[in-house]
């Protein structure tokens, strides 16, 4: 396996919240550049915590989290924050947008906190605003009036596409999507995935897609189940 093509590699990862039993114990997990990984796991299986570790919001209790060959555990908290925004875009289940900003401003947000992504957006599209407009256009939101509207005037489906555009602006190496389709109906779900895949391919970003909806797994390069990765066996509710 070529090291340069590995985006994420977890080795012997362990994590526990202070004063609690170990929640995660993952011997190994890797993600290649450009790969689309479907990670399934029911709610309460430690998904959010794992994504927090990948984003460097939390620090592993033991083991290493390597992102782009850098050890996140060896960085300071603010260095991890900077590293995260430079290389990772996020899409969450719902309520991704700041309601008081316009659609375009929401998409531009990461560029205000990451010089790297801002310069990439300018290099490729001429300006951050153009990058936002183009991305939104590719995601089916080409209407100019719509771009200047308050984000909370959009439908949920439109909001998720805006969130996708925001995750992709400035071409981060990794896009993490945490149940982004659970608020959408079946038709919109398929359509959203298509658009997301297309844009990830254009931006050459890897996609880590977390969902409990197994019906989506067939669209992905590879599927992993958190329940089988994690050696900590948990009693599932229900």
């Amino acid at each position, binding site marked *: 396996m070529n090291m340069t093509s590995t985006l994420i590699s977890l080795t012997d990862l362990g994590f526990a919240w202070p004063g609690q039993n170990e929640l995660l114990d993952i011997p190994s997990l890797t993600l290649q550049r450009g790969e689309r990984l479907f990670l399934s796991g029911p709610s309460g299986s430690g998904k*959010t915590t794992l*994504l*927090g570790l990948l*984003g460097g*919001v*939390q620090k592993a209790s033991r083991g290493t989290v390597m992102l782009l060959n850098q050890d996140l555990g060896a960085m300071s908290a*603010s260095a991890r*924050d*900077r590293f*995260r*925004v430079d290389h990772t875009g*996020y899409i*969450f*289940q719902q*309520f*991704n*947008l*700041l*309601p*008081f*900003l316009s659609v375009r401003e929401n998409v531009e*947000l*990461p560029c*205000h*906190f*990451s010089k790297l992504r801002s310069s990439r957006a300018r290099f490729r599209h001429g300006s951050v605003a153009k990058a936002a407009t183009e991305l939104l256009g590719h995601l089916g939101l080409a209407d100019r009036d719509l771009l200047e509207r308050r984000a909370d005037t959009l439908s949920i489906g439109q909001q998720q596409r805006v969130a996708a555009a*925001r995750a992709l602006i400035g071409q981060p190496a990794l896009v993490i999507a*945490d149940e982004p389709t659970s608020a959408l109906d079946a038709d919109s779900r398929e359509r959203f995935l298509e658009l997301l895949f297309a844009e990830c391919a254009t931006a050459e970003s890897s996609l880590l897609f977390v969902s409990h909806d197994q019906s989506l797994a067939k669209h992905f390069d590879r599927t992993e189940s958190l329940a089988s990765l994690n050696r900590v066996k948990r009693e599932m509710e229900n």
Partner: protein
Amino acid sequence: MYLFRLALASLANRRFTALLTVFTIALSVCLLLAVERVRTEARTSFANTISGTDLIVGARSGSINLLLYSVFRIGNATNNIRWDSYETIAKHPQVKWAIPISLGDSHRGYRVMGTSTDYFSHYRYGRKQALELAQGRAFADDPFEVVLGAEVAEALHYKLKDELVLAHGIATISLVKHADKPFHVVGILKRTGTPVDRTLHISLSGMEALHVDWKNGMPARKGQGVSAEQVRAMDLQPQAITAMLLGLKSRIATFALQREINEYRGEPLLAILPGVALQELWSLMSTAEKALFVVSLFVVLTGLIGMLTAILTSLNERRREMAILRSVGARPIHVAGLLILEAFSLALAGVALGLGLLYVGIALAQGYVQANYGLYLPLSLPSHYDWSLLGAILCAALLMGCIPAWRAYRQSLADGLSIHL
């Protein structure tokens, strides 16, 4: 700078509470500045009550008492000065001018002061301003002429040639009136903003004429009274006066003459420097003035605490906003900065609006305050002191902003990127 844009957008999203907060701060700032301005102007106008007079001389008592009755027309003299003492001092080689003052009568609550025509030529107030007549002339030879202060004429609706009757003593309702000897108005003075406005000026001979037929402090019995016509023919040389104001040829001589008067052998006299006595009197009142200032400071503090409450209450419902910001790359320090900027913006808007309210308020109230309290409130730019007060308010707001900032900082560290509310 982008954080500032975010802070403003977020505030605009909560504009109702934000506006209320700004308005609370604005009102408190306006109150503080208004109190400060009234305080400064009251002190100036107080210090400007009398000027150009080097010494005030009266019977020996306390210096503040002498100042109160001779300048402010408050209280009474304990004793009089004999006419010959007045003449001796007035003829002193260092004395340029001397104004005799005789007090004791009143007219519907306003004090009557007997004096000489020198009063109109030498008395000074404010920045060495002389008294000016708005209408008519100063009193002359006829003893029954009166010159009114501006407020007396306005409040009692007197015009030139009106007749009025003076009352004995200084109570508002006096049982003993000098009804047999009416005075007529010959002049009305321009407004000065000093106690002069509340005084009726008559000549010393007029004052003497009122009491010429009095015996042992009682009006003449029926039939023994002297009519006004008879009085005009009499010699009305006063035997005593209440106080005198002195102007000296050289101010260097002030202390020497003061000592000389205080050691005068003819009768016990007291000479005071008006400036010093005014200072003493003001220091008595400064406690109230300071209390007012402290109260308005507390009102500002209340306004700022209101702001703090509003921001702290909003924090919980804004956890998602913070989490979204974190997920697009804002570090906890940015989140903290955002809240400090928010507090600062609210306070800045409050201060600006407060200043606006102050000027609108002064523009509206200026005439009324001048007419009713004799206090001129200028529409001048804020003083250095005002600016430093405003600066201190903004600093306090910044400091207070650190509290929600710290909480949001902790909160955003704990919440991380996703929060499912």
